[in-house]
């Protein structure tokens, strides 16, 4: 004898079937752009999905009931993740093999977009300066942030004020920050130097972006370091001072090894965020700056980093598919670097 009533079985199967039918109907009319109940396609789909879930919940099984409930509870999250991350990623990779211009797609071009981007000197330049930017930032942001953190965990007066003011730049959006600093560089700094602004020359503009980025990001990383430094047990520090360790020895032999996990997190954070640098770059220089000779070409995108290069390829130059191909490469670089970095850091932590 079954543990489930006939009524429940029928209700469950009926809900499942009607749910699937309604969902497909909703999707169908949405794709065909017309048909019966076209205006209610959204409602059709929602009711369909809800019925399907209800049917699934009442599915006559004891062994898998718990698993089904788990899936149902995970569904909203998985759905949101799929809609905002997985589907765009797959579509984006698909588009990178076409000649899509944002509106029309004439056909597939295979790997042509990928081959083309490695023959484009301005893109190679963007990759180069992005790596340079990441390198400088990873070191400088962490250094500055760590020094600020040491300062803010010492016994100086007005600690709260310093912490708040170092963190404040991080609360200002990158675009606003870019315009503020653009004004500072072209209207204030020039008053003192008497020359053209730093932003009009590629090398100095690059330095300017790094300065602004450190100013924006060091406060945030500082907070994480402060948390790290505060987790060091007081008795260890006390023991070291009794043993006669000077402040330098305490710093290098106790504090830094003890906060190794924090250093991992901070390097990882600065690394990925520096790679994805976009807003300050856009607002401060918009990628301008000339490079007289790079691979035999006169380049005009001296300070254009990868993310901005992808944006201008797609949106300004109207080559969405080409931009997608570059974005796929960007994704691969970012994923690889992040994985390698986390692996290395994890190993180090064990050794320490």
């Amino acid at each position, binding site marked *: 004898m079954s543990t489930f009533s006939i009524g429940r079985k029928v209700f469950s199967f009926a809900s499942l079937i009607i749910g699937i039918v309604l969902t497909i109907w909703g999707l169908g009319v949405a794709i065909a752009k017309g048909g019966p109940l076209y205006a209610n396609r959204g409602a059709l789909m929602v009711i369909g999905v809800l019925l399907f879930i209800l049917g699934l919940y009442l599915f006559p099984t004891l062994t898998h009931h718990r698993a089904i409930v788990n899936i149902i509870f995970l569904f909203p999250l998985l759905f949101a993740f799929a809609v905002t991350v997985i589907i765009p990623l797959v579509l984006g990779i698909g588009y990178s093999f076409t000649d899509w211009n944002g*509106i029309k797609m004439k056909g597939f071009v295979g790997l042509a977009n990928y081959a083309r981007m490695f023959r484009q000197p301005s893109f190679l330049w963007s990759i180069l300066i992005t790596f340079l930017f990441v390198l400088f930032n990873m070191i400088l942001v962490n250094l500055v942030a760590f020094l600020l953190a040491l300062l803010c965990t010492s016994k100086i007066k007005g600690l709260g004020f310093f912490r708040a003011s170092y963190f404040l730049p991080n609360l200002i959006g990158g675009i606003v920050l870019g315009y503020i600093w653009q004004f500072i560089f072209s209207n204030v700094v020039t008053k003192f130097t008497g020359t053209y602004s730093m932003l009009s020359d590629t090398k100095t503009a690059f330095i300017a972006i790094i300065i602004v980025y450190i100013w924006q990001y060091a406060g945030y990383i500082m907070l994480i370091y402060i948390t790290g430094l505060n987790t060091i047990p007081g008795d260890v520090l006390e023991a070291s001072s009794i043993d006669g360790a000077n402040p330098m020895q305490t710093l290098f032999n106790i504090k830094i090894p003890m906060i190794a996990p924090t250093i991992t997190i901070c390097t990882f954070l600065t690394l990925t965020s520096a790679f994805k640098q976009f807003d300050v770059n856009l607002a401060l220089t918009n990628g301008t700056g000339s490079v007289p000779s790079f691979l035999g070409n006169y380049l005009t995108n001296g300070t254009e980093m990868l993310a901005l290069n992808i944006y201008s390829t797609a949106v300004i130059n109207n080559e969405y598919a080409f931009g997608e191909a570059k974005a796929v490469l960007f994704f691969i670089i970012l994923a690889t670097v992040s994985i390698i970095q986390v692996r290395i850091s994890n190993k180090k932590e064990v050794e320490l």
Partner: protein
Amino acid sequence: MKKKLMSVLLAGTMVLSLAACGETSADTATTSDNTAADAQTETQAETTAEAPAATEEAAPAAEATGSFDPVRLLNGKPEIDAQMQALAAKYQEETGNVLTVETIGGDTNASDELKKMYQADNMPDIFVIEANQADTWDGMLADLAGEDWTNKTGFELVNDSMGTIGFPYTVEATALGYNADLLKAAGVDPATLTSPAAWQAACETLDSKKDELGITAVFGWCAEPANLGWSSGTHVFGQYLDAGLKADDTTYIDLLNDGGKIDEARMKSFAEFIGMMNKYSDPALLVDGTYDLQVAGFKEGKYVFITQGNWCVTSPDDVTFECGFAPYAFEDGINTIIAGPPSYWVAYADGNVDGAKAFFNWCAGDSAQNILVNEAGLVSPFDDCQYEAINPFYKSMKSYIDAGNYSGWHTMLKKDGLQNVTCQVFADYAKGSLDADSFTSTMAQVIASYYAQ
């Protein structure tokens, strides 16, 4: 019991959140613009005893007799949004038809927004495009040939494959805008500025009388690339393409679009002219300036010339002097300014084409031109328009247009994004890291490699 209550609560929240997800996706097709809501209520008031036009999608199905379905227009000029709303109200008052105006502006550009609208299947019936964007919409724009308004203007946009597609709603002109009062005080006649030698002499005269005239520099010219790249890379560069040519002469734009070729001799003369502009410009503005500083300087009488168009001074109240245009005479005899519609309104072929056509014909008429010219400050592209534009540059513009001394906006037909490359070369030249010869060769090289990409 508590546990059960909790699970019911959680499950309820989940279902609600799911429903919330679904609802938004179902709603995206309708506009959230407040004007759209107004239009809907208006539609409902009008279409009495007709099919219920509750949503926008349902509206096209309702066939109103003797009039047209509501038309949606995407306006790309945020500065005239209020006037466009007034235009829509007037249109409804006179014809009973509904026009919904949605404005894109600020940080979003219309072509980018249109791509999103296209993907979301939410296209407006009328939208704004620049001439070189026509190919992007190949086969999707309605042919407006034979409409009444086409007989009243020579400024419509004609495309090889789609026919007459663009309705000109304004005419803009660009050349070297001047402050006539200052020129008069210095004894320079702007009508003589049609050769490089005359320009050179005028610059020297003006420069020597700087203190007397109270000016900072002869030219208010800014080659800053990050924010003003459109000015140097598109407008000033456009003078190389069109200055001195008849409006339908496409010699240099054709050469450019044939794989990025330039006429070296012409570019060299152009470079020397730009070199002269660099020399007599305000150094504080030239490399690091902004549009606001440039225009403010001109309005305050700090510069005699400005490298912008009639849009930089829109109201007679802004200036206390007479304005005019002088040509970029980098070769002897150049006497034209660039004039024409910088962008057009087009009708989406899958949208309400009849409604759009009806609106265009009405828009070319008297009451619409009254609003566009007198309230929005636009310059009418129509021959029979009886209104004099209020723009301080209008008199000068009209004298050039009436004499046939105007060239086309062919700079709008260059490859997308070229201005971001060329503006940097202008900036380097302004900074002094290039001279006229290397400006020419660098220009040739960057354009060729940009077209090769």
